[in-house]
């Protein structure tokens, strides 16, 4: 699969997909199923985009973004990938909250949340039911002016604890805040609440992406990793192909699964768009980035079951801006037990915090290293509360920052959740501006995360197929 040369690939395709995140991969697979000839160009040496993993000394394999997704992923994998991939999805039942306002474990679904909100938070049952009916009924075409903060204020005025319960997990899932449109919250929250949180079992991200690669090859998709696209070729106001390694490969359609802004600014160039469109592009806000700490438990060593996903904080109350700050005390721990990778029998913990690119981008080498060290130390101290003596059980720990995300994904400002809401319209309007050019990937909060990205890949594949029939 890997290779720098372009000798195995054809000079022309129906579609070239730039970038192989879950949206790009799913889009490519669907187009292949529609009998289109497809080439995937990926700048990195492996497929998956942020759905990725890495190996370290001591037998460790770390998953970067496999924290948990809604049950809808089962259907998405069955319909757009294979029944086998779908069958490897299982529920994560131990979702834990621990902060100065409340502490408990939940299955994170509508029944259990209704119980918690009525029993623990003493919210009248009618209000809880009404809230769930309201968020479940939200869709993309609804009023977009109400913010998530206003939605909470309408149902739970003055209840900062309830806001924290409802918002904090979603902030970690897609970087959204109380200022984002209520519908973007409602859609994502309802997706999780319908049946809880799910993950792959019997192999981590490497297994899933590997299975997807096998399926793509079976369906006739050509794949080139280590091959950064340099330019999307525009001729006569429509696409003509992609320049890679200095060579033009022709195609009738191009799908970029790269960051929306860098696709428009760098791969295509502002000069190819109307002024009005560029005005809209410039208004698109990039979502925040992340910091992570990867903690490897020694081979043969065990840890107790303390839950699968822990939303922890020592902050007195919820504040989504503070969640991105460098001295954050709120972090999500994803605990991976041997069930994830039975073949290794090993445990690992990945701590995630939201972060601002600007806080990390301009540090000197020394400051950067020191900040990373500080992040690792504070994370291990926080984890020790849940896994006493954890330092004695680990033989690998390292940190990733917004700079790390930027370097591996080439996303503007190391964005780990794409763009804010307004990015969705720009992404969807791209082919109207430039026929044959499409975008897919994490945009608009709704199309974010494993499920949102994969589904957006299908929506884009449908539009590409329609376009190619014209």
């Amino acid at each position, binding site marked *: 699969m890997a290779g720098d040369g372009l000798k195995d690939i054809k000079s022309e395709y129906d579609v070239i997909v730039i970038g192989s995140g879950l949206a790009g991969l799913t889009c490519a697979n669907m187009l292949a199923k529609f009998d289109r000839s497809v080439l995937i160009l990926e700048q990195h040496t492996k497929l998956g985009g942020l759905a990725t993993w890495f190996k370290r000394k001591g037998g460790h394999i770390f998953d970067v973004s496999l924290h948990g997704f809604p049950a809808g992923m089962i259907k998405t994998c069955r319909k757009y990938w294979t029944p086998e991939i779908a069958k490897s999805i299982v529920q994560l039942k131990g979702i834990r909250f621990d902060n100065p306002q409340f502490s408990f474990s939940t299955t994170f679904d509508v029944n259990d949340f209704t119980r918690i909100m009525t029993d623990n938070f003493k919210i009248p049952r009618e209000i809880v039911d009404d809230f769930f009916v309201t968020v479940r009924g939200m869709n993309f075409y609804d009023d977009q002016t109400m913010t998530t903060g206003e939605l909470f204020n309408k149902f739970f005025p003055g209840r900062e604890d309830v806001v924290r319960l409802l918002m904090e997990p979603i902030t970690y899932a897609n970087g959204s805040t109380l200022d984002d449109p209520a519908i973007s919250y409602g859609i994502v929250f309802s997706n999780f609440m319908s049946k809880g949180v799910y993950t792959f079992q019997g192999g981590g991200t490497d297994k899933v992406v590997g299975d997807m690669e096998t399926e793509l090859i079976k369906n006739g998709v050509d794949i080139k990793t280590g091959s950064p696209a340099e330019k999307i070729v525009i001729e006569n106001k429509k696409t003509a192909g992609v320049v890679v390694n200095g060579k033009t490969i022709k195609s009738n359609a191009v799908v970029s699964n790269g960051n929306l802004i860098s696709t428009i600014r760098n791969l295509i160039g502002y000069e190819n768009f109307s002024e009005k469109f560029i005005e809209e592009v410039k208004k698109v806000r990039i979502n925040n980035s992340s910091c992570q700490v990867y903690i490897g438990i020694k081979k043969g060593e065990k840890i107790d079951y303390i839950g699968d996903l822990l939303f922890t904080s020592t902050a007195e109350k919820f504040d989504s801006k503070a969640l991105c700050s460098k001295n954050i005390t709120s972090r999500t721990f994803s605990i991976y037990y041997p069930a994830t990778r039975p073949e290794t029998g090993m445990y690992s913990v990945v701590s995630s915090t939201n972060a601002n690119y600007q806080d990390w981008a301009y540090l000197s080498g020394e400051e950067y290293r020191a900040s990373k060290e500080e992040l690792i130390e504070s994370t291990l101290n926080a984890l020790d509360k849940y896994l006493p003596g954890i330092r004695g059980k680990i033989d690998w720990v390292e940190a990733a920052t917004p700079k790390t995300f930027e370097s591996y994904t080439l996303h503007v400002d190391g964005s780990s959740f794409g763009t804010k809401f307004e990015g969705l319209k720009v992404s969807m309007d791209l082919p109207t501006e430039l026929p044959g050019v499409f975008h897919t990937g994490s945009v608009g909060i709704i199309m974010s995360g494993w499920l949102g990205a994969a589904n957006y890949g*299908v929506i884009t594949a449908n539009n590409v197929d329609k376009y190619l*029939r014209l």
Partner: protein
Amino acid sequence: MTREDIRSTILEVIADIVPDEDLSALTGDVRIRDQIELDSMDFLDIIMELRKRYGVEVPEDDYMELATLDGSVNYLEPRMKEI
């Protein structure tokens, strides 16, 4: 295709997309999504299958026409009668 053929074709497509749903009791004049679990992605799958299998293109503005089984048959009849 006759109206009956079109109806069974639509049911066949839906059955492939949501294999766990019982379609035998579907009422023709009630919204399909009110009778079985069919989300917006499933609906898009129906549109894609109609295009893939029969070359029928349903523009986005016409999606509402396919909300019920009867509506779908009415809408698709002129577009599929030559198939």
